[in-house]
């Protein structure tokens, strides 16, 4: 196993670690004269490369790196894996007296801390901490509570669930899903003497750490928490066969073996890294043939997690926890890579990206977003928010965002030139695809951009929106220029979206938040409550200059989408059959769309 560093001008250099590699690259970069560029190809042999700290190259810290063109590639025919996982020996687990589960005690590190991780890899499979069944939180927030004028003591949650939680050992968290938002708070306890009854069910007060004060104000003003699903996770009470929990405060990891499983022979790994590769300000980086795995995000353990739309934490913004994180990159290429079993994001590009190509890559079992390009901001005037020429083609994104369900599988911020073509996106907690942000200002095309020259085509979306509400297979947001410009310079076509079972909150092709200048044609939506939705519920966010035609659905498309006075036209739509088979039988064109949709990475 070796890292071979090839340079154009010097002999090849072998490195034994990424730390050595980093130093060699920096040394090489510093030798590049001003105004010149040089290339380095880093070839990785087969094997696992451990990174517990990010392999970081920053042109901000070392400006000479901007003169370097870097290619990280797998040696021919090899599949090197970059991982943040550290192994644990099963034999080091001890059985907990009187229980079926085992415990491993982490030693403290040099700073006296225990590691923070949310996933455990058991025989290579990423597991999440065991949790309670879901239940409903009964009470909405009052206006006074939202304003902070009345401070809530906590939440009244179902008594039975609370009792079970109290029987638990170790740190417990409570997660609540509210439409397109998600909140996780650290539980401090419960008061079984403070119980109230509603609709024949008893609820006990659960209290939380200090982040609860923020929670009261954090929920988006147009949604509320009453009758929304939540669950506890993390306590030993929830352990069952094949499950684990981790008490980060005591450094105790509990594992409940499967029947007949010899814990001593189980291979355990825990992720010790939040980010593997981190590039900043570089121009010309290529990743090809590499696999990434074994990351987590420790933020929730010390802060809770309050997510707004699309993977944004309301206090700190989008976390930079990703297998590959890039800030302000230019000419960045990912091809034939695999992002597997990651606790945070797969590929996360922030603060402006220019000329990005992601192709023929696999993103599977990703805790946050598989792929994000751009910030969650509509402020084009800030250079860090501008993305240009982004091309994502022929990728498979699967089982995404079940740890942080507000994360869309593929996210794109404001962008001038976006192609999302021939991808397969399946099994996602929230929207499969999201682009644009909440732009509402009047601007002439060119003065600024939300989405311009966008093409979302020939994608296959399956089983999206399985956890949260009010999202879609394809979700786009924001106006794209002032209303007097009627050109439709953004396109959604040739996509096939299907869900198994209609979810009342799921949509097919969703033009939200004053979306404008879209052509939506020749798409299929199956199993979506709203197959097409060009925002016509919220008056301040009505769409304009959007034409929807030649689309197919197994549910009726709402005629509210037809609003000629704002040039939002629902033209030809084929929605006269009630299931997918009938639709495909009746409409050969829909069959053709299905046949042409998706990536080539799966049959």
């Amino acid at each position, binding site marked *: 196993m070796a890292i071979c560093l090839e340079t154009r001008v010097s002999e090849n250099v072998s490195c034994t670690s990424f730390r050595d590699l980093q130093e060699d690259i920096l040394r090489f970069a510093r030798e590049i004269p001003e105004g010149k560029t040089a290339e380095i190809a880093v070839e990785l042999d087969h094997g696992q490369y451990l990174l517990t700290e990010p392999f970081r190259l920053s042109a901000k810290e070392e400006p000479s790196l901007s003169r370097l063109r870097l290619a990280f590639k797998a040696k021919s025919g090899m599949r090197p894996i970059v991982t943040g996982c550290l192994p644990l020996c099963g034999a080091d687990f001890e059985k907990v007296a009187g229980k079926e589960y085992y415990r491993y005690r982490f030693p403290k590190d040099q700073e006296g801390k225990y590691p923070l991780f949310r996933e455990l890899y058991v025989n290579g499979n990423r597991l999440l901490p065991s949790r309670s069944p879901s239940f409903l939180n009964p009470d909405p927030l009052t206006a006074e509570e939202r304003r902070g004028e009345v401070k809530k003591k906590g939440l009244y949650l179902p008594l039975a669930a609370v009792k079970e939680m109290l029987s638990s050992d170790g740190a417990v968290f409570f997660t609540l899903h509210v439409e397109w938002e998600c909140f996780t708070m650290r539980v401090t306890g419960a008061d079984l003497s403070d119980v109230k009854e509603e609709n024949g069910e008893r609820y006990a007060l659960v209290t939380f750490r200090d982040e609860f004060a923020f929670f009261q104000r954090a929920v988006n003003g147009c949604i509320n928490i009453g009758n929304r699903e939540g669950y506890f996770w993390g306590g030993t009470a929830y352990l069952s066969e094949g499950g684990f929990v981790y008490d980060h405060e005591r450094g105790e990891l509990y594992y409940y073996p499967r029947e007949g499983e010899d814990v001593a022979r189980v291979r355990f790994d825990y992720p010790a890294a939040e980010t593997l590769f981190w590039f900043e300000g570089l121009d010309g980086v290529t990743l090809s043939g590499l696999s990434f795995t074994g990351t987590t995000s420790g933020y929730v353990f010390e802060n809770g997690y309050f997510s707004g739309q699309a993977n944004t934490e309301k206090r700190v913004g989008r976390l930079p926890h990703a297998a590959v994180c890039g800030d302000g990159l230019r000419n960045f290429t990912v091809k034939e890579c695999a992002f597997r079993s990651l606790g945070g994001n797969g590929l996360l590009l922030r603060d402006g990206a220019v*000329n990005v190509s992601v192709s023929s890559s696999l993103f599977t079992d990703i805790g946050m977003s598989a792929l994000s390009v751009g910030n969650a901001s509509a402020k084009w005037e800030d250079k860090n928010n501008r993305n*240009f*020429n982004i091309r994502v083609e022929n990728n498979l994104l699967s089982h995404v965002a079940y740890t942080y369900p507000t994360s869309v599988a593929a996210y794109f911020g404001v962008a*001038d030139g976006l192609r999302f073509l021939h991808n397969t996106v399946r099994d996602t907690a929230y929207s499969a695809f999201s682009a644009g942000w909440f732009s509402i200002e009047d601007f*002439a*095309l060119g*003065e600024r951009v939300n989405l311009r020259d966008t093409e979302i085509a020939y994608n296959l979306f399956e089983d999206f929106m399985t956890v949260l509400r009010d999202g879609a297979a394809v979700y786009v947001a924001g106006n794209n220029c002032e209303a*007097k410009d009627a050109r439709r310079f953004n396109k959604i076509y040739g996509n096939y979206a299907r869900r198994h079972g209609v979810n009342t909150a799921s949509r097919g092709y969703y033009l939200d938040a004053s979306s404008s200048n879209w052509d939506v044609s020749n798409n299929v939506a199956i199993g979506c409550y709203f197959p097409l939705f060009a925002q016509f519920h919220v008056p301040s966010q009505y769409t304009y200059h959007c034409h929807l035609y030649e689309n197919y659905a197994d549910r009726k498309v709402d005629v509210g989408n037809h609003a000629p006075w704002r040039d939002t036209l629902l033209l030809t739509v084929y929605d006269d059959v009630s299931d997918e088979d009938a639709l495909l039988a009746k409409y050969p064109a829909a069959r053709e769309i299905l046949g042409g949709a998706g990536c080539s990475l799966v049959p």
Partner: protein
Amino acid sequence: MNVTLKLRYAEQEEENILSQSTITEAFAAVADAAKEAKADRKLKAEILLEKGDYRLDAPILLDVEENEGLAYTSLSVEGESGARITGTQVLDASQFKKVEGKPYYVCHLPKENGDYPAFEDFFVDGVRLPFASSERFIHPFPYESRVKEDPVNLIGLFLPEDMMRKIVDADAIVPTHIMMFIEWHFKSIEMDYVDFEDKREKDGVSYVRVHLKNDYMALLNNINGFLGIQNREFYFTNCPAYLEPGTFTYNPYAGELFYYPADTLEGHELGYSTLENLITIKGMSGLTFKNVAFTGATTGYRIKNSYFSGQANCESRVRRLSHAAMITHDVRDVVFDGCAFSELGANGLQMKDSNTNVSIVNCRFTHIGMSALSVGNPEKEWGNPKNRNIAIRIENNLVEDIGYTYPSAVALYVGMVDGLVLSHNTIRKCAYSGVSVGWGWSRVDYELGESVNIRDAEISYNRIEDFMMLLRDGAAIYVLGANCDASNARRFNKMHDNYASRELYRDGSKRGYYMDGSSSNWDVYDNVICGVRLPIFSQFHCAGQYTFHNHINNIYSTYPIDRGNHAPWRDTILGVYHDEIADEAEMMKKYPEAAAIRDASGCDLK
């Protein structure tokens, strides 16, 4: 003749209607009212002009920097048919005295602020007269030396002795300029004196040394080093020796205007203008000018400073002169509809700095000395917001007789632009190119959107006749500059369904559809071009400026199209074209599609 002013603040139920005696007062009242305008109290101002001439004694200026409230003021100026704003001052025939022994008259103009006025436009019955000028001749000599340190290059030019004797005999050499047409440049340089002893002869013609004023000979030598002066057309202008009926000269050092009437002195309205701008508006949004005519503006720059032009109406020392009937800076949401710009010595409508959402429709631009219309600066830094032009629409305008005074001025100029529709315009008789769009000659490495030269441009259905009548190396439609990194092959700019025709010229210096200086990402199709020897020119002469990602198809030409335009290795594709018939009528007969293009082109203004 009345000026009505309507003012209404945003929350005001009824508008204030005021009657003003002059247009200057009306604009002043708008400026006053604007002082009370704020972001939450916007002012809507309307000026209505009855039919008639509104004479300005001084330019009108509305400037947001001087009056912040103008940023929150929208202004509409609408005229009845025949409403005209003019900068001319009337001269009475009695002010002219017959020059003894000559057929022309002289008028002595008074000093203004201690100096004689500087202008070059004299109007008879509202029409600009041409300067008295000689016939053109070919200057046969190259520069004597272009070595800066060589004193020989500072001496002067050899010009025809017989013409110089005529000029000197008229005792009026001082204000006379030598006009030189040098490819896409021209020079108008004031002479100083003649040395008849310093002679040379060529082809039986005697030439004498003419010394230029000031350091102009050095300037001539040192600028535009790759352009020569040999075998280029020259003539003398503002030259009393060549006064003929219907011409004039003006000596700005003595305030003497010599006029040779075409018929009688009396019975005509005589006038001149010293105003270089009529109206200037800076930084405002929401401007509408409808059915307003502008005339009677001039420029006083050349007559006192000489003129060394660069490309596209630039002056080598001071860049583009801000002399125009109407000037705007940094404006948005602007409409000029049904306006007329005519009989103007400098520019018609000059929109400098940034422009956003501008529509110029149904307007007439006629007999204008510089450019009819300029939108944007001749600059190539999109990073500077002042150079950005966004959403520009120039449609259904008539543009005629443009640039003959300052021939490097294109008829319609648009700088760097994101979103351009330039359609259904008729352009007739222009000294240089009919249309010029974009700036910058080199390849670029920015991604589309990061920066812009020309993006989403559509130049279509225009009718361009008798273009390139004076200068060389221009075209009916000229575009220049790379438009994004070469890795992006999209053709997001379109040039189609245009018709251009002129009398066949002897060489390839006058071109049809010209993509210069690394032009890229153009689709050029369904165009007709008659009477030029380079009907299509997708730069393939200058190696550093080759074009890329340009596809050219369905071109109808009366002259063979050069195969050099076909360069697949840089995705410059010359596809289908029809160039085998030299006669336009015959070509139209054979190709009804070409006739259809011709018939659908141009504006619908008479």
